[in-house]
């Protein structure tokens, strides 16, 4: 172990997250390795290790002969301070080596608030921050993940953005990079070829011009780069990689269990949901394979909990059969199955009760909006009746805690919609009185609201975010309307959502802001401990950028979005159609009921197998 590290560790919190060596961590003999990849997650070990995508790509890359992919996480503040003090650069967990000279440094970026963390990690790694200041073939800085569907605020820092699912495209990119190194290509030559790999977006090969009013006037691809880069997907989930042998951390992480991915995509089409659009179309993994992977991963890891993961797990066609199939194994090995996302319908309730086997932890539902009108606007197809019926069943079955999630500030929201949330809480309360067999134990109803952030590639990408004052007024309106003590109301802090809204639909003018805010100390801004709203406001002011331009402005249909060169397969015409239907309060059926022609079918050869 590195001597500096050994001396730092006794002084930092949770040292186990900085040492590696976990069961199934991959260690390779350097004499067999010609490509070293640092797979960086711009958040803590506990968060990063809970990310299934990262585990998949770690497995995929390490299966490539000659390639050694290692993990790198953002150090917590105390660790960063110690590292900077003793001059220790950012290092990879498996080897302990500084990543400065690695061939490829790849970032997995799931949320916008991680952007400053990426800049900070580059700096900790002693890698020049700007793509333009890096001259050789190595290190190549690449990034992928949901937040990279609009990578423009990071355009100055990243060499290549990998769009969509990386199982196949990452392999292609690594092969190309290896060839470039062997044949001694220039960096420019390599980037030009990389831009021809489907799914690879090379920001430096696009000339973006702006109008006087700050909107984009043109996006011009250079040197033969494609006009539009379309995300990659794995067409057949049965052929996609699943990390059966996966790293088992020796310190507790957020998702400390087997995550069994049943399918990708979502059939539902909630209009605010970026994941629902960018992961289209839905692709199911066969039940047999899911069952095998579930058993094999438990056997290898020793985990006693399996979460059946997907965007909307109860939409998996063979869910009951899969649970049947796993039942014996689970009973014999004391393994619990859990469903992370629950729809408020009968089917889900029955299944959940069966899986819970007496463990009556809390129930969580996400009606998202307080009235049927607004739920129709956002295309969240759950009715109050279904919700109440589900709660009734749950209370009758002995549950005494329900969590309800909503968003404030959705397009067209009125005070009536806000008050509708309080009404739902009261009706759930009433349902408990009717149904509970044991009222002495009381009931806990929790209402949580977050602040709606319009995201790119959604039907609401043209919509403004409401102002902070208005959001706070609505929070207060709701707070005053919730009268019973049994209902707890939690609301999301507003400042982070403003910054998220700015970054989500930002353009290249924000690169400067990101660098400025990082220089002022921003790093782990997804964490309350480190986030400072004032720091962001200062950075905006210094760079002459008006955050309201990005967060609170309504866009015209004709406006060129900063991310227009990127396609997730869903056409902008479809998104606009959804936008118009939202305005009219008309719902759109899910993909299984009827195809609405979003365009994602072209990613799977013409027809979606929903």
């Amino acid at each position: 172990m590195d001597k500096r590290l050994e001396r730092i560790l006794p002084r930092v919190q949770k040292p186990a997250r900085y040492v590696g060596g976990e069961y199934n961590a991959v260690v390779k003999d350097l004499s067999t390795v010609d490509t070293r990849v640092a797979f960086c997650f711009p958040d803590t070990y506990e968060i990063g290790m809970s990310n299934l995508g990262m585990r998949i790509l770690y497995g995929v890359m390490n299966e490539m002969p000659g390639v050694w992919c290692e993990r790198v996480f953002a150090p917590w503040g105390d660790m960063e301070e110690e590292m900077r003090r003793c001059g220790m650069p950012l290092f990879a967990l498996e080897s302990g080596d500084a990543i400065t000279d690695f061939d490829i440094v790849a970032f997995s970026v799931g949320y916008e608030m991680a952007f400053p963390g990426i800049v900070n990690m580059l700096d900790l790694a002693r890698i020049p921050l700007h793509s333009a200041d890096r001259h050789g073939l190595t290190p190549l800085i690449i990034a992928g993940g949901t937040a990279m569907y609009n990578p423009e605020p990071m355009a100055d820092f990243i060499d290549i953005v990998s769009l969509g699912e990386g199982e196949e495209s990452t392999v292609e990119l690594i092969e190309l990079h290896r060839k470039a190194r062997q044949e001694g290509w220039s960096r420019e030559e390599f980037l030009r070829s990389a831009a021809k790999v489907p799914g690879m977006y090379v920001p430096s090969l696009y000339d973006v011009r702006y109008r006087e009013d700050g909107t984009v006037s043109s996006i011009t691809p250079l040197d033969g780069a494609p006009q539009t880069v379309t995300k990659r997907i794995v067409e057949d989930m049965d052929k996609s990689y699943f990390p059966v042998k996966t790293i088992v951390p020796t310190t507790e992480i957020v998702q400390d269990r087997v995550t069994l991915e049943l399918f990708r995509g979502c059939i539902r089409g909630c209009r605010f949901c970026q994941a629902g659009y960018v992961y289209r179309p839905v692709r199911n993994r066969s039940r047999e394979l899911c069952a095998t992977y579930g058993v094999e991963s438990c056997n290898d890891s020793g985990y006693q909990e399996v979460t059946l993961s997907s965007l909307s797990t109860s939409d998996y066609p063979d869910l009951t059969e899969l649970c049947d199939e796993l039942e014996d194994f689970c009973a014999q090995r004391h393994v619990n199955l859990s469903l992370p996302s629950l729809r408020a319908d009968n089917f889900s309730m029955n299944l959940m009760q069966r899986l819970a086997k007496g463990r009556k932890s809390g129930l969580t539902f996400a009606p998202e909006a307080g009235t049927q009108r607004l739920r129709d606007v956002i295309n969240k197809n759950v009715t109050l009746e279904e919700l109440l019926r589900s709660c009734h069943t749950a209370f009758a079955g002995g549950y005494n805690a329900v969590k309800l999630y909503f968003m404030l500030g959705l397009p067209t929201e009125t005070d009536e919609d806000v008050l509708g949330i309080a009404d739902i809480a009261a009706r759930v309360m009433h349902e408990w009185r009717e149904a509970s067999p044991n009222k002495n134990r009381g009931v806990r109803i929790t209402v949580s609201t977050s602040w709606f952030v319009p995201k790119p590639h959604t039907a609401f990408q043209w919509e403004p975010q409401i102002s902070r004052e208005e959001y706070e007024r609505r929070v207060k309106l709701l707070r005053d309307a919730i009268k019973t003590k049994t209902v707890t109301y939690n609301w999301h802090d507003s400042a982070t959502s403003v910054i998220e809204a700015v970054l989500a639909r930002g353009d290249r003018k924000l690169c400067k802001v990101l660098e400025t805010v990082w220089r002022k100390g921003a790093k782990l801004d997804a964490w309350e401990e480190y986030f400072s709203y004032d720091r962001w406001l200062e950075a905006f002011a210094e760079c002459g950028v008006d955050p309201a331009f990005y967060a609170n402005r309504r866009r015209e249909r004709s406006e060129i979005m900063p991310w227009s060169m990127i396609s997730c397969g869903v056409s902008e015409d479809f998104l606009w159609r959804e936008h118009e239907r939202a305005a009219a309060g008309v719902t759109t059926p899910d993909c299984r009921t009827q195809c609405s022609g979003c365009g994602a079918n072209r990613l799977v050869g013409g027809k979606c197998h929903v």
Partner: protein
Amino acid sequence: MSKLRLLFVKEAQSSYISHLDLLRTFQRAFPRTGLEIRHSQGYHPHPLLSIVLPLPVGQSSVCELMEFEVTQETDGAGIAEKLNGGLPAGLRALDCYPAERPVRELADLRATLELEYDCGVPAGTADQLRELFSRPEILVFKRTKRKELAEVDIAPMLRRADWTEQTTCVRGDVVVQAQNPGLNPQLLAQAVERYLPELTPDFVRVRRTALLDDSGRDFR
């Protein structure tokens, strides 16, 4: 049902695994043995699995003991090998056998201390350490269970301490009382800091080397 003891090494990366996480790590490796750990009865059943003298985080050891009960009848043969198939780097089971001797017969523990001096060991360090650790009273500050700082005399808990000088390191081979109360060998370094501040080392490494009964033989 069998009550077993596992002898294992905890070093390198694994020396940073906390006590609770260590239990969890063993529990996860356990299904590989085909045996089932017994759980306590009652409302919140927990696995009957315990570490005999939990090692402070950051120290390493070649003689850790874990006790556990399994529902099956077994003398423990083969268990260590099977567990090793699922453990992190630096954690290695050496042997598994029926727990026979009561833990109260564990009297002392032996450890090596490496006091590192980056600019070379100051002249006469070993002699001064010998003198210090033969004093009748050596007071250090220790956190009590209630997290308060209390002054304790470690001299009565120190059985033996031999010191040898190397170029940038002084090695101590020490034997200390293991329990009721036990002495964390790291506290010897604290005593150096307090009584011989000019000999304060740049870094201290502690490694447990043996568990002993009161006649000085290995406790297993």
